[in-house]
């Protein structure tokens, strides 16, 4: 995070300035054995913006986002970053495009310590090509001091950490490497109120740095509080995308449950 370059003026969402969106996913379809988990969905994200992805379990939110993070491959559609089409076929491609993901499962190797997890796949090495544990631990201590000042267990495997501590390791991994696009899949699902607030603060902070964030969440109130826009999905299809400022909690809920845009009456 300390290495983060501020690409945008703080709090200025790039939307409406005429510049192309940071990420645009056009007409995405992903199917598993004939079942269309995501069916012709288009979403976009501007710098410094938080877009919430809402929907029931199985609505296709996670699948859509995994097509962006490289965990799944899309069958149809295209992804554009800064207006240019990109190929994302695996997690390495996503990382090369500065897309970082905090998975719901956290995707931590439980048998390794926080430092090894933070740098997994991107280890710092000495001139001899060996991993430089001391330098990495030093960096890990720096970023953890910012994210979670109480964190002390640097030499224990992450299986020995609490839920909140594990979460902060996963977050540290996503924000350390100059992410421009951050995907958070239910980042607060396993957390207590205090830690949830910590994540909310972090989202505001990252947003101010001009990072675009896709936030997947069940909790309508959290989305209302944190997001600028929300895209609602139902049964693999996009119900609609709305500005949070223009809608109420109930509008969002009816979109999730009934699959209708606000304004349309549920008859």
């Amino acid at each position, binding site marked *: 995070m300390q290495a983060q370059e501020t690409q945008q003026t703080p709090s200025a969402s790039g939307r409406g300035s005429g510049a192309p969106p940071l990420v645009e996913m056009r007409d995405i379809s992903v199917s598993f054995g004939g079942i269309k988990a995501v069916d012709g969905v288009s979403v976009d994200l501007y710098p410094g913006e938080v877009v919430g992805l809402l929907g029931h379990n199985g609505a296709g939110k996670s699948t859509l986002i995994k097509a962006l*993070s490289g*965990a799944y491959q899309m069958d149809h559609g295209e992804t554009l970053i800064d207006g240019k089409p990109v190929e994302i076929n*695996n*997690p*390495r491609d996503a*990382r090369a495009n500065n897309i970082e*993901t905090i*998975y719901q*499962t*956290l*995707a*931590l*190797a*439980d*048998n*390794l310590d926080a430092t*090894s*997890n933070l740098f*997994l*796949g*991107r*280890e710092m*090495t000495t001139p001899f*090509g*060996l*991993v430089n*544990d*001391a*330098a990495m*631990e*030093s960096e890990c201590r720096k970023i953890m001091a910012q994210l979670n000042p109480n964190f002390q267990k*640097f030499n224990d*495997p992450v*299986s*020995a950490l609490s839920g909140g501590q594990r979460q902060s390791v996963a977050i540290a991994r996503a924000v350390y490497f100059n992410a421009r696009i951050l995907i958070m899949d239910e980042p607060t699902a396993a957390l207590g109120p205090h830690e949830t607030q910590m994540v909310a603060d972090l989202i505001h902070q990252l947003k101010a740095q001009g990072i675009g964030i896709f936030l997947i969440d069940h909790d309508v109130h959290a989305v209302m509080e944190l997001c600028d826009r929300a895209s609602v999905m139902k049964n693999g299809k996009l119900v609609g995308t709305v500005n949070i400022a223009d809608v109420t909690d109930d509008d969002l809920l009816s979109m999730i449950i009934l699959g209708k845009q606000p304004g349309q009456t549920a008859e």
Partner: protein
Amino acid sequence: MRLLGMIGAFVILCIGFNIVTDGRFLTPRNLFNLSIQTVSVAIMACGMVFIIVTRHIDLSVGALLATTSAVMAMTQTELLPSMLGMGLNNPATWAITIVVGLFVGTLIGAFHGWMVGYLTIPAFIVTLGGFLVWRNVAWYLTSGQTIGPLDSTFLMFGGTNGTLGSTTSWMFGLFAAAIAIWVLWSGRRAKAAHGFPVKPVWAETTLAGIIAIAILGYVYIVNSYAIPTRRLQRMFEARGETMPEGLVVGYGIPISVLILIIVAVTLTIVARKTRFGRYIFATGGNPDAAELSGINTRMLTVKIFALMGFLCAVSAVVASARLANHSNDIGTLDELRVIAAAVIGGTALSGGIGTIYGAILGALIMQALQSGMAMVGVDAPFQNIVVGSVLVLAVYIDIVYRKRLGAK
């Protein structure tokens, strides 16, 4: 802690056998033999640690050892001397033979890894098939015959026929002890330089002391195992000299043990200090997380199995050179000994946990049990019954121990 427990078990075992055999177990001669008998299994156990850590298994190592051994036996007795006309005991024979063997072993291992990683056939099935295939490829290559005698230089890798001698052994021992202490010290300095907490000085000093004593103690033991007078006489006669009266020459460190040490140190560095090693443990701990972190887990599988194949070939050099010929049953049941050594040494079959030194200690404990019982005069069936029971018991103790600790 776990390491101390295993060393303790090994020491108790040795002392126990020593009492029962009236002091015949802890003689330089027996310890020398124990170490050269352990080498072949221990080398393969080092590779098996990586395989098991990534949640795979390799049942074909004994068969692969037989195939590579057969290939090398045919290369040095048939191919090079007759077909290429290099004659017997050509100075290049041993080198070409070993290169061929290592290449074949690595290739077969990589092929196994490709089937596991890219075709996603379970490793258990691939190597169960490999177990039958390679055992019988070896049989076919040699027509089931015992192939020998092997190249005289090649035999130096077996043990008694190739040792460093007293002076070189002492030099090696001092060098190794110095390196070990330097590694501990520089690790501590690197931590201190970043201001991380370090262990108390007495703990590190004690550890350094134990390591130095173990290394130099082993050198002392193998140096005090004197080459038998008759054999020494023959060696002098071979060089056209006469042996001075009353000369005593120690064997020193066997070259095969030196190979094991090189393998163990290299793989320990690989496990702890390289990206490759880091990815092996990450994949074992959470394959999905490794994949999502951008690690190419399929290619990793190929590399791990290729390494296993390479080490099988190294073991084949040591095993066939020790026996001075290639026999059809070489390496039989080695797959089980190798897996047992890794598991006794603390490698968890659930993946993600395991150490190289643990596997070597595991191999040593099993070999000590086996040869100790043979010395006591336990019947062959009972020997295997005991070894099998110890394997199950060791894993049970490990489970209880880990539960107490609250770890996985």
